[in-house]
């Protein structure tokens, strides 16, 4: 999803990793109950929040997400006993790292949402969208393009470089 | 030694003088330091909010901010003996956290007044402090003249236990009863502990306010109470000072002393009458509480 697509200016783009048993089901429930909420979230379904590989989170940001949301079962309720605890620990460590790397903590969120909490899905999504707005776009892809401009400044033969570095 | 800030509110400076005096006496007897909040202002009570709510919240919040200022650093315990003050202060705290518009407006108002509230104040009612900080056992230690045989109706009034204080059951609180027991007296079980005393209506619309009052007094006596103790200046005023009028115009058939629970404690601790403001009572306690044994009240 590209930032240009929305006619009325920039819209935060959030990638959500939801566990199959609780949060994804809750999202379905939100649907069944027609709980309208912000269209900024794209859900990726995993079996368990324990499957969320920190690489996914980083890749999401690098590919242009403005926020990443992880949804899992409440502590003690994990369908696989303790996957959500592993998710929580990774989350806490990731958060520290991301902060060092200049990514605001509000952009990365972990929520426990049980299968019956469709309402919570709505609240969390809307909340997160609202907290992201003031932060503005993270826009790493665009930033990367800007950085790489400096590579071409002194290039005598554009073609040359392309043929190799392209 | 724990230190507390006192928020007297308007009543403790007039009709409720005895409440302030007895609290002072009891607290210092228990070795609790209690100093009055400097330059406090009216909490807004119920009337102010009827005209302008945000101003009312801001008024209340000013006291909270002052408390922080005067306690600089350490987390202040602000003791509000008047039920109305207690409710308004706790309500203000809760609404400031719960509702954006209140928080924003009040915070801005405080800034205008060169103040700021860091949400650190604990608003306490004397009941809460005495039972939860001091502890019933500790209180019992200080009893010199146990009030054996005295039957006491504990009247809490409406605002101390609901809906923000949450220090006791909303309908049948027991904090005061538990204290009274420790004093050697016997709390009567009755159903009007939190029944409205009429509040300011006794003044504005007596025909609506006073009957409420009457039923409380009658029920207390019917339950064999020799004395009513209360923890709110307005309740105390309504219940005690209007008994004549009630007899004259609303067919009240009984007379019963109405003390602040702190006065009763003072008596049991063997403190001096004047220190407890006993002389300010309309319905005096005949030859102190002893004659009240068995609840044989002087019926008018």
């Amino acid at each position, binding site marked *: 999803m590209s930032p240009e697509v929305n006619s009325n200016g920039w819209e935060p783009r959030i990638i959500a990793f939801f566990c199959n048993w609780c949060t994804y089901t809750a999202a379905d429930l939100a649907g069944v109950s027609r709980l309208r909420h912000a269209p900024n979230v794209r859900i990726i379904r995993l079996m368990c929040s324990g499957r969320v590989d920190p690489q996914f989170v980083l890749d999401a940001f690098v590919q242009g997400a403005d926020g990443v949301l992880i949804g899992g079962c409440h502590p003690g309720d994990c369908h696989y006993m303790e996957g959500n605890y592993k998710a929580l620990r990774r989350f806490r460590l990731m958060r520290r790292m991301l902060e060092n790397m200049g990514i605001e903590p509000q952009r990365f969120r972990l929520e426990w949402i049980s299968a019956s909490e469709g309402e919570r899905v709505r609240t969390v999504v809307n909340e997160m969208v609202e907290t992201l707005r003031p932060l503005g776009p993270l826009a790493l892809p665009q930033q990367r393009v800007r950085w790489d401009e400096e590579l071409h400044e002194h290039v005598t033969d554009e073609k040359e470089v392309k043929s190799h570095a392209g | 030694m724990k230190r507390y800030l006192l928020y007297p509110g308007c009543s403790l400076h007039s009709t409720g003088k005895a409440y302030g005096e007895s609290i002072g006496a009891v607290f210092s007897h228990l070795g609790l330091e209690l100093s009055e909040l400097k330059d*406090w*202002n009216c909490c807004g009570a119920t009337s*102010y909010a009827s005209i302008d709510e945000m101003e009312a919240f*801001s008024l209340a919040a000013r006291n909270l901010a002052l408390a922080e200022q005067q306690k600089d650093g350490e987390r202040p315990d602000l003791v509000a003996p008047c039920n109305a003050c207690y409710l308004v202060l706790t309500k203000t705290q809760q609404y400031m956290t*719960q509702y954006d518009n209140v928080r924003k407006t009040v915070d801005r108002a405080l800034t205008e007044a060169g103040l700021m509230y860091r949400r650190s104040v604990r608003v306490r009612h004397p009941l809460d402090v005495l039972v939860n900080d001091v502890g019933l056992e500790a209180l019992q230690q200080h009893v010199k003249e146990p009030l054996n045989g005295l039957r006491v109706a504990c009247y809490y009034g409406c605002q101390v236990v609901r809906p923000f204080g949450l220090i006791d059951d909303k309908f049948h609180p027991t904090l005061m009863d538990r204290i009274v027991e420790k004093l050697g007296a016997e709390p009567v079980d009755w159903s009007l502990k939190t029944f409205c005393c009429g*509040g300011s*209506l006794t003044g504005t*619309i007596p025909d*609506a306010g006073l009957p409420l009052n009457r039923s409380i007094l009658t029920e207390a006596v019917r339950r064999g109470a020799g004395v009513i103790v209360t923890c709110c200046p307005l309740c105390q005023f309504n219940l005690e000072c209007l008994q004549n009028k009630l007899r004259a115009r609303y067919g009240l058939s009984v007379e019963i002393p109405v003390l602040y629970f702190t006065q009763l404690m003072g008596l049991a601790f063997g403190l001096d009458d004047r220190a407890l403001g006993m002389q300010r009572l309309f319905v005096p306690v005949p030859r102190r509480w002893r004659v009240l044994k068995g609840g044989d009240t002087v019926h008018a």
Partner: protein
Amino acid sequence: MILWPMLGFIRGKPHADPRARMRKLKYEKELDLAFGEHVAAKAYGQKLLSCIQCGTCGSTCPLSDYMDYTPRKIIAMTREGFKEDVLNSLTIWLCASCYACTVQCPRQIHITDVMYTLKREAIAAGVYPRRYPIPVFSRQFFDLVRRQGRNSEGRLLLKFYLKTNPFRLLSQAWLGLRLMWTGRFSLKQDRVHDMQKLKRLLAAAAPSKEVPS
């Protein structure tokens, strides 16, 4: 009903006799359909709209006996936009803020706040019963605190009776004297030192300046 003589104070109001208060036919055009949501928003939360008319408030209220409408009816009418009837009612002024209804309401409606809101609406609309004691009392209290930062019960009562019914002052004299003897009553004005700052605080909180949530 003992209360009716009291109501004599509201002169020239069609609402003087509550029995004649509510017509049995209403046209939709007489109603203000936005009123319900408006009040709900002002009185903290949309909960008002979730009222199921169970009547707990009415039966908890120690004063419903003296009200022209029970609180339940007030909420129903507010919800349905019976603005005029609601703002003219005595109910809202009789609420003693004992919060009994609020803690019992099965829908957790902040009924006391609803009453406060309605009082303010009534004042704003200028339809509240002018010489009905309670609004007068509130106004006296308000002015006093605004001016002094504190309320002094003595003066408040004095002013109040002068405004409403001077004769009752006499009936209160005995009480007043006893209060003085016992040192529980004085006319001396208790006030906040730092009034300028307090005034600024109040100015900043004025309705016009309220920060929307």
